[in-house]
């Protein structure tokens, strides 16, 4: 066998190894979501449950998972909508009119670098006075703060890539600036909007730090519900795993079907 094909084989073995390591935890949590109570405490561990215990799914939904799903969805969706509605015009203005020069753009980016804990605390005190603790609006606001810079940054990149000529032609035809933005620039940025919509949704959907502090009886996003399955007297591993599977569904869909948008979103536009 030639040296070349040996290298080829070694490469595939290495890739296979990488895949196994990266996907094994997912396999484990899927298997766990189908285990019966006793199967979590055996030595050696049960790798594949003998009789899939499907009831973990309805059970976790019934123990608050359903509310978790709908709450998470509501909040993530609202935060996504607000981020786009506010982010798109801002990105357009920054890209086309250089408003605030470089400083504004960098300030916006730097907000994403803050440790959330630095703002959670004062936000909490402010929310307390504004009655926003344990409300949908409160969490939507929190997520918008870290989603908006992302939306602006990504869309700015997309708009900068658009040829200016079409917009200039429209201007000559007498369109107002806002019409140009709405009727020409915005439709052309559609792929950017898709990226932003997906990722702002996922970021809000995935968050735990804000959720655990600002949620309560009215609002309990899914990650918080999962944490509640770990009681003082018993950790409901089956239900936790089932809820976790439901929690990663949006991300799985993203990774499978919308892969071409994945790169740009994950890298905040650094990779086009």
């Amino acid at each position, binding site marked *: 066998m030639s040296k070349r094909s040996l290298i080829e084989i070694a490469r595939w073995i290495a890739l296979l190894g990488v895949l196994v390591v990266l996907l094994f935890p997912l396999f484990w949590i899927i298997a766990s979501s189908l285990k019966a109570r006793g199967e979590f405490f055996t030595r050696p561990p049960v790798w594949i449950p003998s009789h899939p215990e499907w009831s973990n799914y309805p059970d976790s939904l019934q123990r608050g998972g359903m509310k978790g799903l709908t709450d998470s969805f509501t909040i993530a969706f609202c935060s996504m909508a607000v981020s786009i509605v506010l982010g798109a015009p801002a990105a357009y203005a920054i890209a086309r009119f250089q408003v605030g020069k470089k400083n504004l753009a960098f300030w916006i980016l730097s907000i994403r670098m803050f440790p959330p804990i630095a703002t959670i605390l004062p936000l*909490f005190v402010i929310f*307390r006075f504004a009655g926003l603790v344990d409300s949908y609006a409160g969490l939507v606001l929190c997520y918008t703060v870290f989603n908006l810079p992302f939306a602006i940054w990504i869309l700015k990149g997309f708009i900068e890539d658009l040829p200016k000529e079409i917009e200039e032609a429209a201007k000559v035809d007498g369109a107002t600036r806002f019409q140009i933005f709405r009727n020409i620039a915005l439709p052309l940025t559609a792929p950017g909007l898709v990226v932003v919509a997906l990722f702002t949704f996922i970021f809000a959907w995935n968050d735990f730090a804000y959720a655990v502090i600002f949620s309560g009886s009215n609002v309990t996003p899914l990650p918080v519900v999962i944490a509640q399955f770990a*009681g*003082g007297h018993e950790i409901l591993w089956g239900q936790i795993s089932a809820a976790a599977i439901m929690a990663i569904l949006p991300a799985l869909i993203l990774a499978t079907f919308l892969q071409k948008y994945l790169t740009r979103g994950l890298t905040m536009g650094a990779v086009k």
Partner: protein
Amino acid sequence: MKRAAHLLAAGFGAVVWTSAAVAADLPSFNHVTVTVVGDAGQNMEALNKYADDFTKAGITIKQVGATFTGLYDKLKTSFVAGSSDYDMVIFYPSYIGDFAGNGYLAPLDEYMKKQPAAIWDPKMDEVMPPYREIYCKWEGKTYALPYDGDVLVLYYRKDLFNNPDEKAAFQKKYGRELAPPATWKEWLQVAEFFTRKAGDTLAGQKLSRPFYGAAEYGARGFSYGWFLSRFASSDGIYFDENMNPEINTDAAVAGLQNMVDTLKFSPPDVLSYGYEELKNAFLNGDLAMVVQWSDVGKKTADPQLSKIVGKAGFAVVPGTEANGKVVHKAPMPVGRVLAVSAKSKNKEAAYWVAKYLSLDKSPITVAANWSGQDPYRLSHFTDTSHYKFPDEASVKEYVAAVEENLKNGFPDLNIPGAAQYIDALDVAVIKALSGEADPKTALDGVAEDWKGITQRLGADTQKKFWNAALESYRAAGLLK
């Protein structure tokens, strides 16, 4: 004037008492929703089990679950935020000073006196004094009703301790009879004696997996309770009367050393053991002895949970010998009480739900396996008909052990700021257990931390709170 305001408030809460309309022991509210917060799982199960009764009384219960270790944060956050979302709160009584002292809870005395007594009186005089005085009162007023009387109990494997071969071997090795350890010194010997490798013989059986003498609560959160069982029995107390920490005395260091030494006879991953792991290790038949909360006793008798049904013995937590006398102390970490939020708009209904759980249904709750609740009323000890043990002798032994431990109860620190003091202690205990620091250094660190916390929270007020706490320990008969 104030009275009138209260009456008005009561009217606003839509309470209609119609004695003729319903069964004698249920009030009749007009569609009131009571939001209850507590640690999710078996400690809120009672709300489901008795849901029909609440419905009959015109009350809808809305449950909010927190995690076991996150309950305090959740409640405190909501209290600090001044929200009125929660009507009834279930919490661990070491926070009574924090919650009542900051005015988050409604005093209950007024509701307790309401007529007819069959509906409103929680029969506090029937509650075991430690729980009544320390769990429920703050600065002379009652702010909470007991719900879960937690005290640590020594569990051991009766079958092994009574095995003739083992008895003979122990006699030969240590020159005394094999028995549940009376002191922490004996505890180490017994733990050492029973620790076996896979393949060794235990009570005539060849072991397929290792067997361990004992285990401790090694995870973060309540590890300190297992240290307290040593610390308190050597006459330790958290502070002197001037709030100077007394947590690093020589006796305290020796106590912590004893706990560290126990790890030699414990499973290798004992530092990750919380309540569940510690319980499972014993119920799986992997341990000869364990100190655990009182509810574990009931679980040993449940074949669904336990592989050692009928084999568990219950005894007093070991003590420390001084001047020829053995002092026993059983810490009372966690526990649960029911209280009414000061901001609640349905205080009366919330109070009644609390009272119903704390009194009327409590004999069933504390005896059941689906609950995490443990006995706290005299009647829970005298009327044992609800407990499900394989035989009458076990019930008697169990109840007697819990009662005896409670007599030696050692309370959790319950002054405002308790969460910080206890966290500092807990971290230090675990550092000693994991070998990161030796017991002396670890406890000296706690004393320093505690001084800092007191300073930060205001030395004068803290001192006042501490002396009030000491007073309540005395009132409960736990301190001379």
